[in-house]
């Protein structure tokens, strides 16, 4: 559904200032201030647009290194997210937005890349929030980002964002990708350092304090820093890059928080029609008291060729 209003930006908003402002939303009562998110009960009916965005190849190279992608002339399927992220931040940190930015939980993320996107192509970006709905654990909405080259839509992303609070046991959750069997071999293992959140923050601009340091994460009730969900999705796709078609749909559902440092592994499930299911799981001891327990799963995902000519 197209929003009523379109706001064209002259340049990418800086995310650092926005997080500073967003932080105020976490302070009780601050949301009454006009510039702090948290007022209102509906999503802003606006689409933010930024046109003619050029990829900074230095930043792309750094992103690829942190996520494990080969430095190619084309963009990783997750890269337009990095370009659209400042717009999403601006949207959610605006006074019109009904929730404070900090404390929102990214539940799942789905990307369609309609074709290979050259790193030299100029992208027109559009971002909006839609479909505010009850969720069993609160309220959820969909964060949409799109990238076009001229009139051609080349990339789109839909993420489900949860605002905890209240209980709606009747509400439906988003469908999750098909599971990867519990016993699937972890064909790849990664040791993740406790600086991973800071490294990914450096290349993505996502400096949410829960990712930055154990101490800042503790302030939000987490025992240690948490790896970014978007890093996890990117790292899995980087591992599968040789098998990812140019036109691809990839879904990721984020599971248990990935506390850093960590040792994780990737389990794959090859299916009909070029579909590959993947699960990012804890790779430390999996058996307790000799009893095999289900693996701790941080991400469940899938890549597959998109349905012809289909957007969602």
């Amino acid at each position, binding site marked *: 559904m197209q929003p009523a209003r379109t706001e064209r930006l002259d340049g990418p908003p800086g995310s650092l200032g926005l997080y500073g402002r967003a932080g105020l939303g976490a302070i009780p009562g601050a949301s009454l201030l006009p510039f702090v998110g948290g007022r209102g009960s509906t999503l802003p009916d606006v689409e933010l647009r930024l046109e003619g965005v050029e990829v900074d*190849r*230095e930043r792309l*190279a*750094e992103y690829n*290194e942190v996520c494990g992608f*080969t*430095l*190619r*002339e084309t963009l990783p399927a997750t890269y337009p997210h990095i370009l659209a992220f400042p717009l999403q931040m601006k949207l959610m940190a605006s006074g019109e937005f009904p929730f404070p930015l900090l404390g929102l939980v990214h539940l799942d993320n789905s990307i369609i890349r309609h074709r290979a996107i050259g*790193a*030299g192509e100029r992208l027109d970006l559009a971002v909006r929030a839609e479909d505010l709905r009850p969720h069993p654990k609160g309220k959820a909405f969909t964060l949409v980002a799109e990238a076009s080259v001229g009139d051609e839509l080349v990339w789109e992303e839909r993420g489900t964002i949860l605002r905890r609070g209240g209980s709606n046991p009747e509400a439906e959750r988003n469908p999750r990708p098909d599971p990867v069997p519990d016993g699937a071999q972890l064909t790849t293992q990664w040791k993740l350092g406790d600086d991973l959140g800071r490294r990914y923050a450096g290349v993505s601009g996502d400096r949410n304090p829960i990712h930055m340091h154990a101490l800042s994460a503790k302030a939000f009730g987490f025992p240690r820093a948490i790896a970014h969900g978007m890093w996890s999705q990117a790292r899995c796709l980087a591992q599968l*890059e*040789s*098998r990812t078609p140019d036109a691809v749909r990839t879904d990721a559902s984020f599971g248990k928080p990935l506390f850093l440092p960590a040792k994780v592994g990737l389990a794959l499930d090859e299916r009909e029609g070029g579909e590959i299911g993947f699960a990012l799981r804890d790779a430390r001891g999996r058996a307790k008291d000799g009893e095999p327990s289900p693996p701790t799963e941080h991400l469940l995902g899938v890549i597959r060729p998109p349905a012809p000519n289909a957007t969602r």
Partner: protein
Amino acid sequence: MNSQTRPAVVLASNRIPFARSNGPYAKASNQDMLTAALDGLIAAAGIAGERLGEIAGGAVLKHSRDFNLTRESLLGTRISPETPAYDVGQACGTGLETFILTANKVALGQIDSAIACGVDTTSDAPVALNEDLRKILMEANSTKSNADRAKLLAKLRPGMIVPEIPQNAEPRTGLSMGEHTAIMARDWGITREAQDELAIASHDRLAAAYEEGFEDDLVTPYLGLERDQNLRPGSTLEKLGKLKPVFGGPEGTMTAANSTPLSDGASAVLLSSEQWAKEHGLTPLARFVDAETAAVDHVGGRDGLLMAPAYAVPRMLARNELSLQDFDFYEIHEAFAAQVLSTLAAWEDPVFCHERLGLDAPLGSIDRAKLNVKGGSLAAAHPFAATGGRIVGNLAKILHENGGGRGLISICAAGGQGVVGILEA
């Protein structure tokens, strides 16, 4: 073993534009660039998903983590992961050597298809730990007692923070390749003017090749670069004459214009049997005829460092009952203009040909209009192991467009080595 051989044919080649050191590819690793060159070749030939006989590749400057560089690169491409790969190292002869190795296997019927490739970066060079520090760390690793470890710690010196940087110098002589070539230029009386003329022709011919679209299906843009960054056509003897010599002292004849700069790049060549080509709907551009490698005693000073091709070519010619003039095209790698001109001078010299090559008559001169007709390394630059693939791909296409003919490839390499070969169409 099979006693019959069959033709090995070149089907396609692809490279990324070559960039100057610390330029647009400064953030790209050898693996990134090699993957990009392979991607381009796979797309051009339409062989995504194919299991090939093998991929041979290499890099002259390599990080220790890149012990399996070619195999790791292919795993990032859409070629079947069931394709085996190995790394080859023969200094600047690496690229051509990968082609010879794979072509021979195709000819013997051991494999039906292969990619020969090479890559080098001087921007992301394998800087290593200071050698003294490395030795202390190795010793500490095998030391059991804390007291002994403390003694080792006491040996640490601030100077050990200075890392070990790869040198562009011959390990056994300490002279850089340019300094070695300056000696050759002096010995063979190669003039500054002759070197500058060769450099100007190289740039003008490569620029013309781009203009006429010859490079369109040979080069795939990478990281925003569409043509070789070093390319500067339209220079003159007067302009180049103003440059100061960089090798051979103040009286030297070698400058930044008639020597190749440090650079980054990658190239790849697809080859196969005729049958495989037919089954995959690909047109053979040229076939591999023969190859030869030679080496000289540059340490003893009997020959100049880069003179080995002068020996390799006559041996190969004799085996194939050809004269030096029986070629339509000559692709002589322009590491330095002086290397090309010293080699040509040696083949014209009765004394060298008699005393060193054991020939009754000199090989003679070549028609310079047939030399590096689409430009050479002086214009494109020379990312060491990537040069062989550039030249093989170039020559195969030149021969194909010519509707037939015979071409000679000659590449000099560090350590006093030379790798040469013949293609026909």
